[in-house]
């Protein structure tokens, strides 16, 4: 792999994430006393799979757990994880890496399994950030633990940092490293159009519920003035909620579409 290819790979890995990939916690709700902002674990895994392909990366980890107590005196588990994340490919049954990052993460929970899981995802995200994955959403340390609970002890991140203030997300005026073309051509998280998974979910829900697809599409046009494929993310989200809901609907309305005066139900 030459420098240009590496540069391109890095750009693909570090591309911004859609808004729905970002998770935030409120310190007042988690009991930690500080807010956190991060990228959801699955989105990071998806990015690695999308860019590198299945089997294009490998994670090896060592997890340790020790008992501790929360500020209210309950037993808690403090878990640490050292992870080695390698990018590469399999050849003749052997994984051949071309890049590697080592990172530590940690998590505290009143549940041991959750503590282990949290430490692993914390370390994984940190290691992935070495390759640029999620970096555009952050200005500093990843503080991505998102397991609310009684624990009021700060998770250690293994790098000596403590509870950093919530990093600022890039705003519309922020420039990133992608160059001028990227500033005029919006990437996924800057766009308004519904996402491919949203569209797939809507189509799937309509079919699963046995709704008349043509009539459903017509109703969408009448309600939003556009075809399903050009819905905004927000409107698509509303439709998904309504299609998934079963309490708000008043029945099928006799039209076989499952569309009601105030929404799409079943």
């Amino acid at each position, binding site marked *: 792999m030459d420098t240009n290819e590496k540069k391109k790979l890095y750009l693909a890995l570090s591309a911004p994430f859609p808004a729905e990939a970002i998770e935030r916690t409120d310190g007042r709700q988690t009991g930690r006393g500080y807010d956190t902002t991060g990228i959801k674990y699955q989105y990071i895994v998806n990015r690695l799979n999308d860019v590198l392909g299945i089997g294009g990366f490998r994670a090896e980890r060592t997890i340790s757990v020790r008992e501790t107590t929360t500020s209210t005196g309950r037993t808690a588990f403090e878990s640490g994880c050292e992870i080695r994340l390698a990018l590469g490919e399999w050849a003749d049954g052997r994984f051949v890496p071309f890049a590697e990052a080592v990172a530590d993460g940690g998590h505290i929970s009143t549940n041991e399994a959750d503590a282990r899981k949290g430490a692993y995802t914390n370390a994984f995200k940190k290691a992935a950030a070495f390759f640029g994955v999620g970096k555009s959403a952050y200005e500093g340390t990843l503080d991505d633990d998102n397991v609310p609970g009684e624990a009021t002890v700060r998770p250690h991140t293994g790098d000596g940092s403590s509870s950093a203030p919530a990093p600022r997300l890039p705003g519309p005026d922020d420039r990133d490293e992608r160059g001028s073309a990227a500033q005029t051509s919006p990437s996924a998280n800057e766009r308004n159009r519904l996402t491919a998974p949203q569209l797939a979910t809507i189509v799937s829900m309509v079919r699963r519920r046995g709704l008349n697809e043509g009539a459903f599409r017509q109703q969408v046009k009448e309600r939003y003035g556009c075809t399903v494929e*050009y819905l905004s993310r927000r409107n698509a989200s509303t439709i998904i909620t309504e299609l998934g809901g079963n309490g708000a609907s008043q029945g099928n309305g006799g039209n076989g579409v499952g569309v009601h005066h105030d929404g799409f139900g079943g």
Partner: protein
Amino acid sequence: MQLEKLREGLHVSASQLRTYMTCPRKYEYRYVRGVEPEFTTAALVLGTATHAALALFYRGIMERSAVPEFEECKTAFREALAAARKGVVPIEETETDIEAQGAALLRLFYDGARESPPVVLAVEYPFAVELNHPTTGEVLQERLIGGMDLVVQEAGRTTVVEHKTASRKWSQDQVRHDLQITCYRLAAAKLGMGEVGLRVQQLVKTKTPSVVTVEAERGERDINDLLCIIVGILGAVDAQAFFPVRSGKCLTCPFRRRCASE
């Protein structure tokens, strides 16, 4: 997989790109708002029916290793024409005798093509390929979809053939810059077809009809240009940039009345 199935996901197509570049408002009517066109142009009906006949011709060679009879091709043409006439959208009123014009073009094509039938690999081959941002490499959520009219094998090389019915022979610039051809080149590379040949086979409906075959070339720069166009148009659509482009093409636009009244 059928092209209709591929259309279910978020996608872009050469037709969408061409429409936006011709007139963003037309794009809005057709794709965003899903407005029913007032009519179908006679040219489109002729093109669709001719494609059906050519598809039958090449499919016969591929599946039966035999050149179908002319009457079979003509029947395919007539059936496609009849389907268009039965459609919800009326065909524009025109003095052109679509059936007679189609028969003349088909005859000319058939007499030439039957002499040296190619090795046919695929007919109306649908594709849906991932698109990457030209600058960041980011995978776009829209996939490029389309259908290759014909894929043949010639002298050890795979060639993608695009069929066109046109009122006049394409200029060199049209052949050089047509986006559909570039889409084929990109799709072929993504599908692992390697370096493919690209060809436009035109059935020219001039007073004296003719069949013109032109080879096309596309390189990396063309692919990059295509990706820039796609990303630019997606961004413009997201920003709802649907301004009208007034030109001579408005005369044949199936949304002209609505456009004039809004």
